[in-house]
Structures are given as C-alpha cells and as structure tokens.
C-alpha cells in the first residue's frame, strides 16, 4: 500500500470513527475527540497529498459501493495538491476546534441541552466534512465525484447551521447556502453528464481520451456549465452571494475550513474540467474566466473595504483572492491556447501559489476572528479595539495574517502577486504587433490587480488597526481575555506556514511546478529558478523575498541603534493623547471602521451605494433641542439586491402558476399520467 493509499485510508477511518464518537455522553470529550479526528483526517490528507506531489500516483476501484456505477478514486499531482491543501487546513483547524467551545452557562435547576458548537451533530460533522473535502479531488469518475461533492455540501450545511438556535440570521444563511450550492450542483451535473454521455463511460480517464472528438459547441457548453457551477463554489461574482452570508454565521473553525479549503475545490473543478479533461480549449473561454476573475477581485475587495463585520470582511476577501487566482488561471489559459507555454506556466504557477498562500493566511485570519469572537462576543469592528494588550498572542498572529493578506512584502501574499504581475506584464511582445484582444485586456487586468492590491492594503489596515490597536471602544472589548492553548497552537501552525511561504517560497514552488505537467496545454516546465531569489526562466525578472525581509529587519535594527546612539538618552514619556486641549478624548471618539472606510466608500459610491439612516430624537419640551442622534450606515451587497430579487420573484410566480395544476382533482392527475406516458412512448418511437 503506497503512502497515498495509507493516507486516504487514515482519512476514511477517522471519518468513520467520527460517527461512532457522536455517541459519547460528555460534550468536552466529544469536542476533544472531534478535533483530534479532524487532525487525523488532516494528517492523512497531508501525507497522501505530499506523496502524490512528489510523484506517486494511486488509484482504487470499489465495484459494488454505488448503485448503477462503481466508486473510483484516482490520485495524480493535481489532486495531490488539493488533497494536501485541504489536509493542512484541516490539521490546523482540528487543533483549534478542540479549545473553541465554551462551557455552556447553567441555568438554576436546569441542565442545558447541548446545542451550538457542543451539539453531537456539529461535532460529528466536523471530521466528516474534512474527510469529504479531502476525498473530492481523488474522485476518478463522475458518480464518485458527484456523491462526494454532495456529501461535502450537505455536511457543510449542517455545520453552517450549528448555531441556528441562538441567531435567526443563521437559518437565512443556511437557506441561501443550500439553494446556491444545489444550483451549482445542477450545473456541474449537467456538464459532467454531457461529457460522460458523449464518452460512453463515466471514468475520467476515458472522458479525457474522447473529449478532443467532441464538437466545439458541446465542449464550450460543458466548459461554461462547469465554470458556472465550480465558480459559484469558488465564490466568483455574481454567484458569490452565499459566501458573505454563510461564512460569518458558521463557527469560526468551520468558516476557516470553508474559506481556505472548500472554495479551492471550485478552482480544482475548473482546472480538472477545463485544462485536464477538455485539454485546454479556445481562447475565449479563458478570457471569460479572466474577466469574471477580475470583476470578482474588484467587487470582493470593495465590499471587504466597506464591511465593518470582521467575518464578513474576511468572506469578501475570499472572493477577492479567488478572483485574483482566476485572473491568473484565465491568463494562463489564454496563453496556453495560443501556444505561449512559458507565460502560461508562469501564470498558472502564480495562480496555484496564490491558492496555497491564501489557504494559509485565510485560515489564520478566520481563526483569529474566532478567537476575538470567543473572547468578546463581538464581530463588529466598530466596537472592538485595544485587544493588543489583552490578547497579545492573537494580535500577533492576526498581524501576520493581515500582512500576508494585504500583499505587502515581507508577507507571502506579495510573492504570488509579484509572480502574477510578472506574468501579465510580459504578455505583450517586445517588438512586433501584439494581438488586439491581449493588448486591450492585459493592461486592464494589470490595473484591476493593482487597484485590488491597493484597496486590500486599506482593508486589512482597517481590520487590524481598528480591531486590535489603540483603546477598546466598548465594555466587551475591554473585558477580553486571551484564548486557551489549543487555539493558540492552531493559529501558530498557520502563522508558521505563512512565514515559511513568505521567506522560503522556493521549496513550495518546486512542488507546485510539478502540477503544471498535468495540464497538457502547459506541459512540464520550471518557470522559476534560483536559490535565494526567484528568477524567472525564459523571461527576465527576479526578486528575493528573503533578502527584502532581511534588508528591512537589518535596516530597522541599524536605524534604531544609530538613532539611540545619536539621541539624548531621555526615557520615553507616556502622556495623554493630544486632543487639542479640549475635553479628554474618550475611546469612543477614536476613528471607527465605518469612518475609516468612508473616503473610499464615497469614491466608489456608484458600486457600493451605502444606505444612511439618521434618527434624531428631540427633547419633549422643545423641538429645537436635540437629545440624541443615531446614525446608521449599511452597505448591502448590491449585486444581490439587484440581480436576485427579480429571479426569486420570477421563480415565485412560476411556482404560483404551477399550483393551478395541482387542484386536487384525481381525474386530472390520472389524465396527466396518461398524457405523459403517451408523450414518452411517442418520443421513443420517433428517436429509436
């Protein structure tokens, strides 16, 4: 049994044990075991994934497991990457989830039933969810893939609904999530069914062989359907609306798993169907992907920039990062379609590296948000602040995550964004006339990536600065306490991963380069060389993240030493903050997240359309004197409020019309059956 097989077996056993574990009586034991099993699932995934990335392939078939079909698992380098990624995230979140549930408050004389994060369903579902996600990339035929995909969706729905008794928004979030994930499933199902019908077989291997023979119309239809379905799972606009609803309402370790692991499976689907099964495809497919990616990146970062709920901000940031990844994928596909393999390889590497970086920092950030939520019961940035003194470890970890997410050196987000930019700017040839489409699209793509990067910096400075620095803006924030050890260990693991990816990206890059060989239109190549610095091969460009980090650190130390030497040696005095001498500045007078985002919200007013509510209460005695003023600003998801209500209203109208068919008359129902049967017989007679 190879390492890959051993890893996957570990995953399945841990998932099976999870169902048994649900019978344990004590919530604390269950929580601990559930976390440990998730870690085992993660470990299995990491082992299997690394073995696959290093070259070993594996496949297995289970003939009587599924009705009408057989279960087939195949692991190649592409699946290995995603298995590894999901496994690593599950490992960190498993440790984190052990410490997460708080002791339920006991009411006098009553034992509270276990609900929320201590309920049996939630605790059993966690390892099962992780296991389903690890197994999805290993599916080798259509039925296995769909079964595992749906299992993943249902278990994650149960996890999203964990806290439905404490808040009504959770139920709403669950409904949106369920509806959209199943709409996506329908699209994927159609695409894969078309492929398998044309190929005459369900197995991916045989589909791959027969796909070149399909007409370009069929191929395009399959690609568009699978892009719609997988893109919705990845959180691309306009099918992203479930993300900012579901991720904030789920418990934070579930949000981490969903944002850092599950959305990557949408990317996996597009790569598998577009590059592997369909073998590349014409250029317009990938220009479409690039366009949707760029729009998602811009829209996601604008909404994140305007968001004041910390977890909603992180959810929109997921849309933004997946948008950037799909810009890379789209550009790679465009160049692969025209035969420019060097560029395609570099761009695909940039996209895949950004996936890994995003998984690392998004896990870290959601775990940090969960730590804050557990300590202060706050998600609203406007009420936070001053957490740096009360929760130093969490602040340090979230600081590392925010640096990575903002795409600044020496963070790891900068490395993949740099590679992406290098790929895009080398797209136009030094001499000769370029292709018109490329010459128009690439500068706009660079502009979109740049604006996203700039707004991303503003977003994460807001999230970190307003949430953790200065003084607490509310009593809950002032009463925060540091989180228990297992949560800190989970966060530390993710932070270490971010640090390794930032300072020594060449080792992961080597592993990721092997993935390129799976995609035939790109082929086996090594876009990046060098030891300490990243040097691009085939095109000119180099940058060294390690040397930049050392330079910054060294410069800081040198500057501190010189300045202290030249200075007078007077000790630093702590004084009241200067407020122009008036009344003492209270913490409530500090800038809030809403205020911080206001200039940019005004600049992008047409896209965000914030709604303002001003509520003035006058004194009873006189209308000229104001007792209090209440101001509320709400930035809703404009795509959701413009695109979805008409669709939902139309669906409602069709539903109402259909009710007229169901009037209760048995004679009518029998007539429906007879007419239906006659139509089917006539159709068979005509086509047979």
């Amino acid at each position: 049994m190879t390492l890959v097989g051993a890893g996957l077996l570990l995953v399945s056993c841990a998932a099976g044990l999870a169902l048994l574990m649900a019978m344990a009586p004590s919530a604390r034991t269950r929580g601990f075991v559930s976390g440990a099993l998730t870690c085992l699932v993660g470990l299995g995934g990491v082992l299997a994934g690394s073995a696959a990335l290093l070259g070993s392939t594996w496949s297995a078939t289970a003939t009587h497991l599924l009705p009408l079909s057989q279960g087939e698992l195949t692991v190649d380098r592409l699946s290995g990457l995603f298995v590894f990624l999901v496994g690593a995230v599950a490992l960190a979140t498993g440790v984190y989830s052990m410490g997460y549930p708080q002791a339920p408050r006991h009411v006098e004389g009553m034992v509270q039933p276990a609900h929320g994060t201590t309920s049996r369903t939630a605790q059993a579902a966690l390892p099962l969810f992780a296991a389903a996600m690890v197994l999805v990339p290993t599916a080798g035929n259509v039925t296995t893939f769909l079964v595992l995909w749906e299992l993943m969706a249902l278990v994650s729905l149960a996890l999203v609904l964990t806290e439905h008794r404490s808040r009504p928004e959770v139920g709403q979030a669950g409904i949106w999530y369920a509806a959209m994930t199943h709409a996506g499933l329908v699209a994927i199902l159609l695409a894969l069914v078309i492929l398998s019908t044309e190929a005459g077989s369900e197995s991916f291997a045989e589909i791959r062989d027969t796909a070149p023979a399909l007409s370009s119309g069929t191929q395009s239809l399959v690609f568009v359907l699978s892009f719609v379905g997988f893109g919705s799972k990845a959180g691309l606009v306009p099918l992203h609306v479930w993300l900012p609803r579901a991720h904030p309402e789920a418990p934070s370790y579930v949000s981490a798993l969903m944002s850092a692991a599950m959305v990557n499976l949408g990317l996996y689907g597009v790569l598998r169907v577009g590059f592997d099964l369909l073998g590349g495809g014409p250029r317009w497919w990938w220009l479409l992907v690039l366009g949707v990616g760029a729009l998602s990146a811009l829209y996601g970062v604008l909404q994140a920039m305007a968001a004041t709920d910390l977890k909603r901000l992180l959810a929109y940031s997921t849309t933004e990062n997946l948008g950037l990844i799909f810009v890379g994928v789209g550009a790679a596909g465009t160049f692969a379609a025209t035969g420019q393999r060097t560029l395609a390889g570099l761009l695909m590497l940039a996209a895949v590296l950004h996936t890994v970086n995003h998984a690392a920092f998004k896990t870290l950030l959601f775990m940090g948000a969960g730590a804050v939520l557990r300590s202060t019961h706050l998600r609203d940035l406007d009420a936070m602040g001053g957490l740096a003194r009360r929760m130093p470890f969490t602040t340090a970890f979230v600081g590392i995550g925010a640096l990575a997410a903002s795409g600044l050196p020496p963070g790891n987000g900068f490395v993949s964004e740099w590679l992406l930019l290098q790929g895009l700017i080398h797209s136009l040839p030094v001499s000769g006339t370029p292709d018109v489409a490329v010459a128009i699209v690439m500068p706009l793509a660079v502009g979109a990536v740049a604006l996203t990067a700039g707004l991303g910096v503003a977003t994460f400075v807001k999230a970190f600065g307003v949430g953790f620095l200065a003084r607490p803006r509310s009593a809950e924030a002032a009463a925060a306490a540091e989180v228990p050890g297992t949560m800190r260990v989970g966060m530390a693991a993710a932070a270490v991963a971010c640090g390794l990816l930032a300072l020594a990206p060449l080792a992961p890059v080597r592993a990721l380069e092997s993935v390129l060989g799976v995609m035939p239109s790109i082929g086996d190549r090594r876009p990046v060389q060098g030891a300490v610095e990243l040097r691009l091969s085939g095109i000119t460009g180099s940058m060294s993240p390690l040397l930049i980090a050392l330079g910054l650190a060294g410069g800081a130390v040198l500057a501190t030493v010189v300045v202290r030497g030249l200075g007078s040696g007077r000790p630093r005095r702590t004084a009241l903050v200067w407020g122009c001498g008036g009344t003492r500045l209270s913490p409530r007078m500090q800038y809030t997240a809403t205020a911080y985002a206001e200039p940019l919200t005004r600049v992008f007013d047409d896209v965000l359309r914030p709604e303002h509510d001003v509520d003035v209460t006058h004194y009873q005695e006189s209308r000229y004197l104001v007792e209090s003023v209440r101001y509320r600003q709400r930035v809703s998801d404009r795509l959701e409020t413009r695109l979805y209500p008409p669709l939902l209203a139309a669906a409602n109208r069709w539903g109402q019309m259909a009710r007229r068919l169901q009037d209760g008359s048995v004679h009518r129902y029998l007539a429906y059956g007879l007419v239906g049967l006659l139509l089917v017989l006539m159709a068979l007679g005509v086509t047979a």
Partner: protein
Amino acid sequence: MAWPVAGVVLQVFVVVAGAPVLIALMRQVRARLEGRVGAGLSQPWRDLRKQLAKEPMAPDGSTVLFTTAPVVVLSSALLIAATAPFVSTTSPLDGMADLYAVVALLLVGSTALALAGLDTGSAFGGMGSSRTLTVAALAEPTLLVAGFALSVRVGSSNLASLVEHAQRAPSTIFSPATLLAAVALWIVVVAETGRLPVDNPATHLELTMIHEATILEYAGRDLAVVELGSAIRLVILLGLWGNLFLPWGVATTSTPGLLALGAIVFAAKVAVLGSVLAASEVLMAKWRLFRVPELLAGSFLFGVLAVSSSFFLA
C-alpha cells in the same frame, strides 16, 4: 576592488545626507518666490539635531507598533535607496527588488505610518491614516500600469535595465508612450510625497492634513526618524522619476570617476526637479480631498494610454 559595493554605499550616503538639503532647497525656493529670505540650506539638519535631543513620547494606550513604525518607514526607504539605480546601474543588490517590489516597499512605509496613526487612539491619527491609504490605494493602479508601459519595450521590470535601455535609445524618451507615462508618474509622485495640490506639508489645520495628521503624536527622536524617512521618500520618488525619464549621467560601469559623476548628476537632477515642484506649488492651492481621486483617475487614464500607444503607435 568592490567598486559596486562602494557605489551602493555612496548612493545611500548621497540620499540620506541630501534628503534634508532637498527639503531645505524646496523651502528656500518657495521663500524666495514669496519675497522672503528663508532659513537656509542647513536648517533641516539643525532641526533634526535638536529633535534627536528631545524627549520621545507615546500616547496612553498605544502599543509597540507606534514606537516601531518610524523605524520601519526609515528602513524601507533605506532599502530602496540601496537597491534602486540612482548613482549607478551595477548595484549587486539589483536582482533583489524590481520596479514592482520598490512600489510595494514604498507602500510598506505608508502602511506603517497608517497603523501608527490608528494606534495613537486619536481621531486625527485615524483620519490621517484613512486618507493616506485612500490616496495610496488610488495611486497603485497608475504606478503599476505606467510601470507596465515602461517595461514592455525592455522586456523586464528590472529598474537598472529600464535606465540602461533609456540611456542607449534616447529616442524612446520622446515617444508618446514615455511622455504619457512621465505625466502619469509625475502626478503619482506629487500624490505619494504629499505635496500640493494633494496635501499641504506646512498646514496647521488638522482637517486638511493627510500625512501630517498621522505624525501629530510623535516627539523627539521618533519625530526625527519620521521626518528623515519622509524626506528620503521624496528623494527616492524624484530620483526614480528623474532616472527613468532623464537617464543621462547614471553610471553603467563601476569606476570611481563614473560613480562620482553619477552622484553629482543625481544630486543635480533631484535638486532641479525639487525646485520645479516647489515653484509649481507656489502657483496652486490645495484641492479638497474628494477631487484627488479624480486627479488620480486621470493619471490612471494616462497610464493606460501609455501602454496602448506603445503598441499601436510603435
């Protein structure tokens, strides 16, 4: 001999020593145009010397970020001063940071100050921080797209290659693409260094401040470091603009004579550009904050036109 290393040391020295002198020169130009005498070219050095001797302070409730931000600003500026081609293009650190890494390092400096502004716990700091990042975020697209326009014909975004290519082929400097990119980048230089009409460095009205508002709480050696860092950023941005669009004088081989000439020509270029900037500031007033995004959008348009014209007109 390690002449390239000597070139790097010379470059850093010229930038650090000359930054306060540039500030003084710009103040002198402004003073003379206003009919005044001005404080003299060595005044900022006196100011720095005095500030180093004063007591540093920190507001109640701030964290270690407030005290380390000035050092981060200075450190990122020094790193750029060491790697970018100001005096010569043969720096051994050349492969470490290209145009995009330099832009990102500038943003690191702005971010450090923005975080420090929030850490002060005062409304002024938050306001300055928010406005700084608004301007920085809106200037990013222009910087990267204009960088794209410049790097396309060279096939690389490495700064030394860009300067050498411009030196070897002077006709490219007068092409529409380069001129458009020059205008776009000049607007960004004005915005990123906080000069009129985007920001007034000498204002006393807190509600009109962008950069100054984030440093209102700094005193003593922290203030000295922040002011020096900001001055170095001004030299870097003017120097990059000057060397990309007026590349003559930059040493392409590391011999002592060429290095010395390169240092003198660099100092002269930055002095002239600084004087032109100061003189233009006399003629205009500060724009209200919400006109600045229109200015930056216009510069982005120039950047996109630069890229397109480099293909459709080449």
